[in-house]
């Protein structure tokens, strides 16, 4: 139990952030919730009650976007976080030559300008791009893969693109966390002859659990709000195969006849999904 005196300290550390969040979020949240109950074209709005929620169920485009988003989440997030962890552990090794350069190199994708990156990704995965050329040279395929023109392959490109861009970003959090775990246990296990992969799974992973949970939840939110990659590489196509919820919200607001109320409703679908998924992740983390 906290004593009253220390709890005052606790609140005073939290308060500045809470006050700012209160000022800048409460009104916008209430306002957007209220907006989600309205229908109409542009600013000619009228109260629609649950009309937007009913529209969700009958909107084939929304259902496609929902499916794609969840698919990206389930397939991509575990791959990315596992990779980030492996890189972090490898680059935490003091005896590794040039680790500062390796770290910076692997971090680079997330700072590389989105413009450059999307132009380049598109050209690499073009019909006659370097990826197809390489695969055909190695005789892995005898026909160029229609990376960006086939709905299934376009999803693969997007998954590769997000993994490429965000693995290094996630790696930073692991690298930082590795500095604060107790090395003596680790050292002892090494002396006892526990093999590397077992040390990673049985010692490192449990000690990093809070950060793993953090990254899973943040990546869940990030993937549910996935926008940049699909907007810039595939524009949601072909045939909506890479349309995400966030891109759909953008289309509803800025590309189509503005449907502010409906766009707001789709936004809150993301919130509900995050609520469910975060609750599940917290539960799983606790049970372990």
């Amino acid at each position, binding site marked *: 139990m906290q004593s009253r005196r220390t709890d005052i300290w606790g609140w005073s550390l939290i308060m500045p952030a809470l006050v700012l969040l209160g000022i800048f979020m409460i009104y916008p*949240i209430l306002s957007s919730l209220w907006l989600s109950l309205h229908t109409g074209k542009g600013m000619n709005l009228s109260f629609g009650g649950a009309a937007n929620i009913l529209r969700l169920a009958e909107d084939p485009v929304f259902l496609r976007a929902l499916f794609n988003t969840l698919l990206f989440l389930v397939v991509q997030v575990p791959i990315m976080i596992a990779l980030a962890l492996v890189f972090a552990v490898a680059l935490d090794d003091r005896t590794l030559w040039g680790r500062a350069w390796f770290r910076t190199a692997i971090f680079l994708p997330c*700072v590389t300008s989105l413009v*450059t990156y999307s132009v380049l990704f598109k050209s690499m995965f073009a019909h006659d791009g370097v990826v197809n050329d390489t695969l055909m040279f190695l005789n892995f395929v005898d026909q160029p893969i229609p990376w960006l023109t086939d709905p299934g392959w376009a999803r693969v490109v997007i998954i590769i693109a997000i993994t490429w861009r965000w693995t290094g970003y996630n790696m930073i959090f692991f690298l930082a966390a590795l500095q*604060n775990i107790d090395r003596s246990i680790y050292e002892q296990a090494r002396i006892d002859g526990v093999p590397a992969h077992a040390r990673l799974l049985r010692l490192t992973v449990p000690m990093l659990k*809070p950060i793993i949970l*953090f990254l899973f939840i943040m990546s869940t939110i990030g993937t549910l709000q996935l926008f940049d990659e699909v907007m810039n590489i595939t524009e949601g196509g072909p045939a909506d195969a890479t349309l995400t919820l966030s891109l759909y919200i953008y289309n509803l607001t800025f590309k189509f006849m503005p449907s502010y109320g409906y766009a707001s409703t789709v936004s809150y679908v993301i*919130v509900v999904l995050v609520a469910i998924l975060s609750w599940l992740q917290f539960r799983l983390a606790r049970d372990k």
Partner: protein
Amino acid sequence: MSPVSRILRSATYLGLGLAALISVFPFYWMLVSMTNSAVEVANGKLTFGDQLIANFQSLLTEVDMVRVLFNSTVITLFGTILTVALSSAAGYGFEIFRSRFKDHLFSLLLLMLSIPFGAMMIPLFVMFAKAGLLNSFAAILLPGIASIFIVFYFRQATKAFPHELRDAARIDGLNELQIFLRIYLPVMRSTYAAATVIVFMANWNAYLWPLIVLQTNDMKTITLVVSSLVSAYNPNYGVVSVAAVIATLPTCLVFFILQRSFVEGLTGGVK
């Protein structure tokens, strides 16, 4: 070295080398494009050319680079310092002074984090217009300073902060603020380094909100400049690449400097 560990070591280098190559390639391409003409870039030229100075000059005639970089720098410096300070304190507060009520409050914050910004952008814009703060640095900075993301990060990272250290400091007569500043801060050096990199990058690359609240040419940031250069009917990708490199380098530099802090913290020695 035993043969097994030698093989393992070689495999590590091979894997890391490959990953580094794939990661760096687009960056390399950006550097190459900076030195080539628009047509050469469009045709996928992969070697350095001689157009660097021409591209630079062309960019400088189109854009007031000094002003733009000043704006981006001010926004990023203030944004990073304030965000890391305020949000780390809150994260520490949430974890060290845990209570059931605070945990519930925290869950609520996480939910707020998941609301897409686009949904809140219009009312937020109205708020700043009513306050008369449009087209000011304050408008850009204020909504981002209390970052739930960074609060969450510090809360999770603080779980690795040894309680014994805090107890010892209390016995030594330090008050809670002193513990935070003198014990927690140095111990969590690597966490602060990571948070600084992340927040710096987020501020430097901030796009949608600055686009909405900044209204005049003299308030433009580098991200907005890159965006408008690309949207030409006939974009000069050589010039775009110069701007893109300028937009990228500061974050790389900050990372390269701060990654040195990702070395064993004080905890290992204390325990």
